[in-house]
């Protein structure tokens, strides 16, 4: 995703969401905007972002339908770590620092898909993996205004219509 796309994401938060972010994390959101303007991630380094992105892509893989990568979950996670998930920063920092001990020193993102799955399976009980797993899923299914679920790819897959205004019949069984 281009820097301008990321800028666009930050600037295009809905009124509610922007107010929510600005009210709770004004300094962090300002820093995020500045960092993204310079082509950087807000919290993660580029190397860390590559590893987290690769993890997310295994947790919710691209198959015949889009996965975490197409949903741009990494930007959701990066922003989450300076806003509502600030309390998870230490877990990410420790987990990322510990990753090379499972990869023979290589960057996780450079491993083959099978190797990545093996590493993740070996750490799936850790708080770090659980945090990345939950954030990946949130990034797939939270409103696109939070940085992931790009073009509603997550919602589309699970048949979720976000119109918030419906008339019966709702499903296949309540049709007259």
């Amino acid at each position, binding site marked *: 995703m281009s820097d301008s796309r990321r800028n666009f994401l930050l600037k295009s938060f809905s009124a*509610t*969401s922007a107010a*929510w972010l600005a*009210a*709770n994390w004004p300094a962090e959101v300002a820093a995020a905007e500045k960092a993204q303007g310079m082509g950087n991630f807000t919290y993660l380094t580029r190397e860390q972002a590559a590893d987290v992105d690769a993890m997310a892509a*295994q*947790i*919710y*893989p691209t*198959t015949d*339908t889009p*996965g975490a990568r197409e949903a741009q979950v990494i930007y959701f996670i990066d922003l989450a770590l300076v806003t*509502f998930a600030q309390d998870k920063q230490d877990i990410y920092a420790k987990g990322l620092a510990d990753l090379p001990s499972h990869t023979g020193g290589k960057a996780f993102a450079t491993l083959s898909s099978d190797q990545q*799955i093996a590493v*993740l399976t070996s750490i*799936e009980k850790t708080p770090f993996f659980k945090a990345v*797993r*939950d954030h*990946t*899923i*949130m990034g*797939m*299914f*939270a*409103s696109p*205004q*939070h940085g992931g679920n790009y073009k509603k790819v*997550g*919602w589309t*897959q*699970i*048949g*979720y*219509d976000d119109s*918030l*205004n*419906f*008339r*019966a*019949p*709702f*499903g*296949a*069984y*309540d049709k007259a």
Partner: protein
Amino acid sequence: MKKFKPSEEVDFVVIGSGAAGGVMAKQLAVAGFSVVVMEQGAWGAYGHEQDYNKDELINRFPSEEDMLLSDPKTQRNTFRRNANEKAVAGSHNYGCVVGGGTVTYGASSWRHLPWEFDEGSRFGTIQGTGVADWPVSYAEIEPYYTQAEWEIGISGPNLKTPLIAPMSKPYPCKPLPLKSSGALIQKAAEKLNLTVTPNVAAIITEPYNGRSGCINCGACSGYGCQTKARSSSAVALLPIAVATGNCEIRVHSYVREINVDASGRATGVTYFDKANNNQEVFQKAKCVVLSANGTETPRLLLLSKSNRFQQGLANSSGLVGKYLMTGNGGGASGLFSDPLNEYKGAVTGAAVLSYVPNDTKGRGWYGGGRMTARGQMSPIQYGLAGPHGAPSWGAGYKKALIEQANRRLTMVNFISQLPVETNTVDLDPEMKDAWGLPAMRITTTSHENDFKAMQFFIDKSAEILKAAGATQVWTDQVNDSKGGAHARGTARMGNDPKSSVVNKYHRAHDVPNLFVVDGSSFVTGGRNHPTMTISALAYRCADHLVKAAKTGNVTI
């Protein structure tokens, strides 16, 4: 909005603005009395409900001003299964905003059936429980149910069956749509000979009392209602109270004590004023109405210790905080071949009524329950919980998540729970809340009878789902409850001051000008759908109180 000075003696202080507090404030203010409502939470979107958030992520991580529920990190509480255990940090919470729990609740609004008021004499007491008759009969409370339903705005079916309490007037609004879950359960009901109805809900389905009907947005329980279709106290009652010019709602006002004078009469309340650096303020009042919910009400009484009331206010019986009923549930889920899209529409769907009545001989346990179809999880919730019988991440997770999406029907049951004296709310001896007061401690284990009840309903749920044609069915584990918004029984009503906390008009036996009305007043728990009965009790209490206060004597 009218503002009162704390030094000014108002007629009534009402603590809490939810199902009971909203009714009390409205009825007292309309009758011409001056009322200050103490609410520890924020305004929410009171008066600008269109601004209620519908974003699931924001709802999971609300900012302080947007919080609609109490936060166990500040409104700290502890939990233990029995008195031999040391209590650990708990997760109990409740509605905490103007309108209380009615702002976010599922809004089921079933009346108790006539025999739910005299289960003691009708079925006999059970060893180890406090099953007893209420001091109020169904006939006495029926007019107040009707008044509550019409003033608050309830939708429901108008059926005549012994499984629904007899009504002197039908519901004001037509029922909510049955949804696909309801259609499937109806199909099963035909095979199994069960009675199924749309839910009875405090959700209006057509324009009513100046509010618009439900648009089936589906972001329902846990969210504020943007269209004001959910008939919360904040849209149906409190605006009327405020419009009289007699009522002030004072937010961010956390009452820490009900004060009494040397003669044992309540003189007002002391609260922390959040806007003023949590400074303590004393609000003077002629009469205090306590409607803080089934857990905070007993806690506040226990916190209000004085020389005269050394074991807590209104507690000469020793029963304040005892006979806690938190509410049991459990159920089953099934998958169907086509989409149900249960995320659309109100959270609670059709109800199976056939197992509401007591049948101790046939079933071998005491009590009953109402079975309901429950709206499916919202997207993040669904993703985090994951599909049934699949890995928790990876290609297998994704495949199953997509396959099972929108095809799930979950049945949730609302089951009786016996009042047991050792199930309690009291003060934790060690933990303090964020204001430095002793935290609430919950101690509860359901009676062994109730485990049989839960298992019965779990099995019945599976049977119904199979009969409805589910391709796969799985059941919940029996899970004893730990707290939550349905707490009842902790300041029970009764005629005898030795075995109850308040009289049949909710006046504390020990304090002539203190009225306690909310879920804590319940003697027995009904079928775990408490709100309509809380509302009706409040209307009845207010009626009595207005008549008494007009003669200048609330102590009648």
